[in-house]
């Protein structure tokens, strides 16, 4: 007969010296871990609550401009540098790390309409209301030479400018779309379609010869830089203010529209947007994609910045402060961590892209804890309590009331349509999908 009884040697379970770390024997047997699901749920709930507790997205404001900030430009190689142009013609270079202005120049008479930078970061272009395009050199430490390297005098006002992603070319728009070679004073190519003026232009970052622009006849026009005529256009019900290309999916772009919505289009099929993003309660002024292409930030005339997942109808985040007025322009920093917004009341604000993210270097244990919590939040995202907490945002009274009003308007419109449908011949009042409602037509 053999008898064995459990007898543990304490040396196997205790640390040898005081400087050693504690031994933590694990046994993953589910029997030893009762209430697995409820405990996970509680953890998820706590993680969600903590996320809301730590959601402090506002990092700081850069003040110094003497008029509303009209345009922002990210530096392609330095994360800490930022260019901003104001309505009084000043261009400022900012150090984001120090949160201070490095230099100021009086670039234009009247508004600075647009800024864009060469991909090397050595020089940048600005267009203003004084009908000029100016090229400025910029040193690595953020110093601009007082005099522009070159000045091009145009016939009409330029409303926007964007640089090609690989060649020494840039595009401006105004009465027509011009493609410029950096070395020449005349545009290489000019595109017109109709008589209306354009107010936004953007190069596609992947298919670098494609250019998108927004026109004041409520249309979005696509061009191929190599061709002689514009490619196609789509007319919406209201004007689009700006256009942004998805940096990861070459064929997707998003426009910020006056009808409070943003529309994501597939370049290949303009007859219907892929997604309608609606949450703003006033015109959307600007939109910029995150470098991952997963999300974008939008600036609203309703004094808020919103963050939308690229494939979602509703925003995941709303940023506002009491002092922030109409937001004119927004940029997503190239390290995917910050959002910069320029607004009417002369300030540039720095926000975190993830409101509750902890900045700075994380310890490995912190990192694993954050990862674990985010996974839990994802797992239990649809539980009513978790959903309620994670969705809750405090919004300004104005927006709260506006949202309510818009909800009522939308409901009444729907009700009216349903009533009309009910009382007319079957098929006389067709069902129009929400996405198609704002599209008037597509022209090739």
């Amino acid at each position, binding site marked *: *007969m*053999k*008898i*064995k*009884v*459990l*007898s*543990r040697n*304490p040396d*196997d*379970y*205790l640390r040898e010296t005081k400087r050693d770390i*504690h*031994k*933590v*024997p*694990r*046994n*993953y*047997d*589910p*029997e*030893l*871990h*009762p*209430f*697995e*699901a*409820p*405990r*996970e*749920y*509680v*953890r998820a709930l*706590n993680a969600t609550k903590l996320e809301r507790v730590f959601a402090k997205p506002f990092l700081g404001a850069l003040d110094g401009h003497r008029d509303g900030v009209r345009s922002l430009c990210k530096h392609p190689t330095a994360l800490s540098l930022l260019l901003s142009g104001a309505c009084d013609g000043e261009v400022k270079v900012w150090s984001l790390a120090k949160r201070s202005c490095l230099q100021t120049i009086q670039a234009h008479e009247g508004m600075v309409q647009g800024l864009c930078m060469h991909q090397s970061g050595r020089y940048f272009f600005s267009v203003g209301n004084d009908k000029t395009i100016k090229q400025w050199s910029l040193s690595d430490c953020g110093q601009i030479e007082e005099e522009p390297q070159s000045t091009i005098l145009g016939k009409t006002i330029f409303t926007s400018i964007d640089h090609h992603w690989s060649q020494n070319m840039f595009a401006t728009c105004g009465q027509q779309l011009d493609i410029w070679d950096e070395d020449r004073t005349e545009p290489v190519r000019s595109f017109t379609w109709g008589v209306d003026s354009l107010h936004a232009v953007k190069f596609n970052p992947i298919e670098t010869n494609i250019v998108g622009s927004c026109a004041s006849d409520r249309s979005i026009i696509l061009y191929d830089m190599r061709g002689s005529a514009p490619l196609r256009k789509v007319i919406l019900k209201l004007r689009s203010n700006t256009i942004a290309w998805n940096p990861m999916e070459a064929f997707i772009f998003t426009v910020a529209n006056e009808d409070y919505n943003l529309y994501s289009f597939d370049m290949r099929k303009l007859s219907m947007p892929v997604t309608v993003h609606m949450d703003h309660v006033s015109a959307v002024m600007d939109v910029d994609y995150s470098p991952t292409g997963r999300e974008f930030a939008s600036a609203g005339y309703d004094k808020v910045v919103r963050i939308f997942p690229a494939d979602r109808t509703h925003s995941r985040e709303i940023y506002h402060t009491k002092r922030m007025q109409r937001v004119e322009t927004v940029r997503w920093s190239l390290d995917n961590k910050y959002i910069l917004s320029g607004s009417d009341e002369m300030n540039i604000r720095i926000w975190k892209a993830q409101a509750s993210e902890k900045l700075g270097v994380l310890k490995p244990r912190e990192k694993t804890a954050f990862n674990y919590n985010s996974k839990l939040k994802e797992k239990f995202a649809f*539980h009513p309590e978790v959903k309620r907490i994670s969705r809750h945002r405090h919004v300004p009274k104005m927006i709260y009331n506006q949202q309510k009003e818009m909800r009522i308007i939308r409901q009444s419109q729907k009700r009216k349509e349903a009533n009309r449908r009910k009382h007319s011949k079957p098929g006389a009042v067709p069902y129009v999908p929400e996405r198609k409602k704002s599209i008037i037509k597509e022209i090739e």
Partner: protein
Amino acid sequence: MEKIPEKINKKKTNNKKASRYFQPQEEVYNIDDKSLKKFKSGHWKKRQDGKTRKKNDERAVKRLRKVDKFLGDAPISKEKIKKYKRGSDMEATHARTYFHKTVFEQKEKKLELAAKQAARSELLLQETSGFIDAESDEETTYISQHDIVKAVDINSASKYFELTLTDFGPYKIHYTRNGRFLLMGGAKGHVAAIDWQTKKLLCEMNVMETVQDIKWLHQETMFAVAQKQWTYIYDNQGIELHCLKALDCVLNLEFLPYHFLLASSNSKGYLSWLDVSIGQKVAGHSTGMGRLDIMCQNPYNATICLGHSGGTVTMWSPNVKEPLIKMLCHGGGVRSVTVDKKGRYMCTSGIDRTMKIWDLRTYKMLQSYKIGMGASHLAFSQKNSLAVSKGNIVEIYKDCCQETVTSPFLTQRLPSSVFGLQFCPFEDVLGVGHSNGFSSLIIPGSGEPNFDAMESNPYQTKKQRRQAEVKMLLDKVPYEMIHLDTGKIGQVDQKTLEDKIEESNKILFLKPKKIEYEPSYKMKGRSKGLKKEQRKKGVIEEHKRRKLKKLWT
């Protein structure tokens, strides 16, 4: 017809080529299937062109010889993986889009990997379970504690001991969750807490009152004592911390560690739950079943099981005023109830001298045993050994739930009749409290050999204990979640949705309930028949809409 022979020809030529490359294979022994496949598929063809073919051939052969015999991970048996799997595999066939399908599949893969890794980590477990290996003709029933003590090492032998405390008995006992500390409460007021392995006394006192029951709270720093009138909480030095007047005339205490609830049943048929982390009573039910002197908890779902004199066993949650389950278990009164760790089996004994094993998944009886004098106390161990006390004899049964056993695994006679019975967690030890004191018996194979230090650690330091306390409080499960099926929260709530849809459908299509509404009289011709009827209809529609809205929010 013409094409087919061509194909065959091609294949043939391929085979020829392959066979030519194959020649050295006869000499090679250490080739596994993978490398052979590579060889066959012409993976090495490139190296074998040109003049240096022979040399390269030799190299290839050498390379083949070096191939590891035990490629990849060690195989794990499916049984082991199954143990660590939560639920069955999900099929991605119902996914909405291709994208969702891939997402599902990736998730499934990750889950499988997790199960595999957990199963593989079994290799790292340090201890193995205890056992008695008897020869075929030998019975283990009559192996006495002295025999066991003689056979085992000195460290284990010290776990068999007796404390003779004749003055204040009979004793109720309780071990902490990590099995390190023991609490004893004599009916005549003697309360003592000891580290039973080192035999170090934490505190000892006499509360000068009848002690009905004692229980450790979440850690060894505090314990609750149900005394004659109120229930008291003491710390491990015996200092009275609280007097819980909310719990009066308590007969039985149970502590639910994951919910921080102290459940108590009293002599007036009142069952109550007290949250010890906030010190408030969260629920209390008047059961109306008379004196509640038999109580145990179901460690799997934290429900409370009560045994009644009519032979019924009821299960209670703090959220429902009625018992969740009420089952008739015995012809006569119930004497003792216990539930195993996984919440699968419940064991009951009654004054009809039977002991019955119930399956708590189907609520059906699995086994019924005749016990000579009837079992007064029952206890399950972590490895599902069952301790049964009858008078002053304790019998241990092994695997008595699924199969019918004919004789006990071990028996032991004690100096006096048994009053409290509990297996020590993570040890092969059974603690028995009786009128003459306390006995610690060695029961090989009853305890879980490998503990998880994140869950309960017998070797934890003071700092670790404090850390664990914080973690436990953070993970405190709200009492609202106590229900029969604990896994429910992690599952898709299909039924509620179906019910909702069904109910809303009913409202939409069923004839609306008649609503008493008499439109008030309005002047200027607005109370004509048609107008009145329209107004009435509007009100009814509005009522319907509101009801629908309520249903969906």
